[in-house]
């Protein structure tokens, strides 16, 4: 029983207490760059989650075969394999989304969350634990991207998942600022201040 709860905590830790973006402040580039609409934000989160979970599982599976001194290059090869996979799959099946995300899909390979989890967690833990850890961090990452993207799309465009939400009088003259880079910086600054204020992430 005790073991089961501790395993489950690997999953829950990543969602709020160790949220990669808002608590640990890593993986900021995609969080700011791809959150112009809810669909793009979730697309980016899905791509990064696929790579994070798969690389966590594979790194954990081969951890006893990998010599300590060359572990980082091996992690990078494992991660870039999955990045190349998702890169080509998205190009083939989601061309519109791929055009929007652009260079950020291959850049998943240097996303600090993924290499960070491989080094700090998957290299020292079993396959199931690593899977749960990857899943939890992915959910936490996706949650922040989804919140950011929803707010920016709603304020900057008056829509949600490309469906009109706010009245036409607003949609004709929306606050475009939210879609531009300064709006993204301001929003994540306010979200981080909110996290500090509420004391989330401090167990």
């Amino acid at each position, binding site marked *: 029983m005790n073991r089961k709860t501790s395993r489950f905590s690997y999953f829950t830790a990543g969602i709020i207490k160790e949220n990669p973006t808002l608590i640990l402040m890593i993986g900021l580039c995609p969080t700011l*760059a791809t959150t112009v609409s809810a669909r793009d934000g979730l697309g980016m989160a899905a791509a990064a989650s696929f790579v994070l979970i798969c690389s966590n599982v594979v790194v954990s599976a081969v951890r006893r075969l990998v010599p300590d001194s060359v572990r*980082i290059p091996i992690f990078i090869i494992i991660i*870039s*394999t999955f990045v190349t996979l998702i890169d080509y799959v998205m190009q083939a099946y989601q061309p519109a989304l791929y055009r929007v995300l652009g*260079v950020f899909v291959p850049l998943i390979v240097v996303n600090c969350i993924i290499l960070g989890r491989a080094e700090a967690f998957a290299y020292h833990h079993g396959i199931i634990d690593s899977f749960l850890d990857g899943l939890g961090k992915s959910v936490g990452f996706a949650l922040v991207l989804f919140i950011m993207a929803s707010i920016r799309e709603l304020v900057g465009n008056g829509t949600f998942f490309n469906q009109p939400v706010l009245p036409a009088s607003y949609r004709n003259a929306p606050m475009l600022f939210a879609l531009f*880079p300064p709006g993204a*910086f301001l929003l994540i600054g306010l979200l981080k201040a909110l996290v*500090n204020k509420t004391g989330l992430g401090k167990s």
Partner: protein
Amino acid sequence: MNHFSPAKIFLAAFLVNNILLMRFIGLCPFFGVSTALDTSVGMSAAVLFVMLLAAWVSWVLYHTLLLPLGLVFLRTAVFILVIAGLVQFVEMFLKKYVRALYSAMGIYLPLITTNCAILAVTFLNIDYQFNLLQATIFAVGTAAGFALVIILFAAIRERLADAPISPSFRGYPIAFVGAALVALAFLGFTALFGIS
């Protein structure tokens, strides 16, 4: 092949499509290192050095090996390994032969392997179909833009350290808000031109 003039490529990379504020690439070292002026200068020098080398090596590898052999799908893996190897090599070389330079930017070199700005420039050089000269100018312009913003921002953050800021905004939140204001100024350049 495209026909952007060298001046346009440089200005676009330097200001209009600034890698930090407009493209949102390389933010982790940006917020991590920009707390003090001297660390920002060291980081900028290291980025310029490695970005230029990485742009050359990756461009030559792509056009002489990957493209003729039909191995374009290995681009991501090859480029990141080339950068990681290059950074190690540069670090060893400087440590042995150019001690002064090593002590100035040595500690920033390992961090650069995971600096997405370097990798992004190598990808963008391919995506924009630049020739070697254009790729060189793009790399220098991007590194200059990185240096400009990170050094400007370090000066702002040194002031912020002493400012009376409410506790929940201290640290990262106020840095983000400051970055928003600097980005707002850079947004003005987008009316000029850009490459994308």
